[in-house]
């Protein structure tokens, strides 16, 4: 088996992501889903658009998944992130992992989610019920602080 990652404009089907992991040596399987909430920071939301830099996003996902694979000792790991227009309740990200023992499944999935929030070149445009929309304030990606520009 090998780590699988992808970026997609199609609806994510949780059971298909779950089916990508699991092994006879694994006693723990974990599926995490990020879903679109009907409000954010107190503002009612009726949908959102994820813009992605798909080629880089796949390469960053691959990097994160490889790190998690090494760190938590499993190659049964699948990660997918959606882009395009999403409705309330739609799955924006799915992480599936299986490991011999439960600690690594919890920590591995959590690691993938935290790193993806920090590094994945994807941007969220929220549509509010009052007709407005806005880019969600994001996280400064890792990089070398550049000091004053020359």
């Amino acid at each position, binding site marked *: 088996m090998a780590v699988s990652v992808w970026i997609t404009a199609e609806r994510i089907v949780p059971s298909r992501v779950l089916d990508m992991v699991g092994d006879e040596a694994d006693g723990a399987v974990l599926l995490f889903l*990020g879903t679109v909430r009907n409000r954010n920071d107190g503002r009612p939301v009726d949908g959102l658009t*994820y*813009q*992605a*830099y798909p*080629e*880089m*996003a796949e*390469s*960053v996902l691959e990097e994160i998944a490889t790190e998690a694979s090494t760190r938590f000792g499993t190659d049964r790991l699948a990660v997918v*992130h959606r882009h395009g227009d999403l409705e309330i309740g739609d799955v*924006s*990200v799915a992480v599936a992992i299986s490991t011999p023992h439960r600690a690594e499944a919890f920590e591995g999935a959590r690691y993938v*989610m935290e790193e*993806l*929030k*920090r*590094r*994945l*070149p*994807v*941007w*969220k*445009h929220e549509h509010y019920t009052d007709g407005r929309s806005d*880019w*969600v*304030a*994001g*996280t*400064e*990606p*890792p*990089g*070398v*602080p*550049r*000091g*004053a*520009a*020359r």
Partner: protein
Amino acid sequence: MRVRTLLFASHRDLARADSVEVELDRGATVSDLVAALRAQGGVWADLPVTTAVAVNHRYAPADLPIGEDDEVALIPPVAGG
């Protein structure tokens, strides 16, 4: 050399374009790219000097030299998940 720089999210809205051309000296680095964009003024005048830049799909250190065939992109704060 002229470097086509890909834009996303708020940067794309600012520029009303999905890329911007930046004129750089041969051997210029990621830092030089951000400085050159700021020097263009207009919507770019206030671009933070710490703005992340990706070169060939990886976050690039400030001192990385940019080549003519590299795929360069400006990466605003990310919001995946």
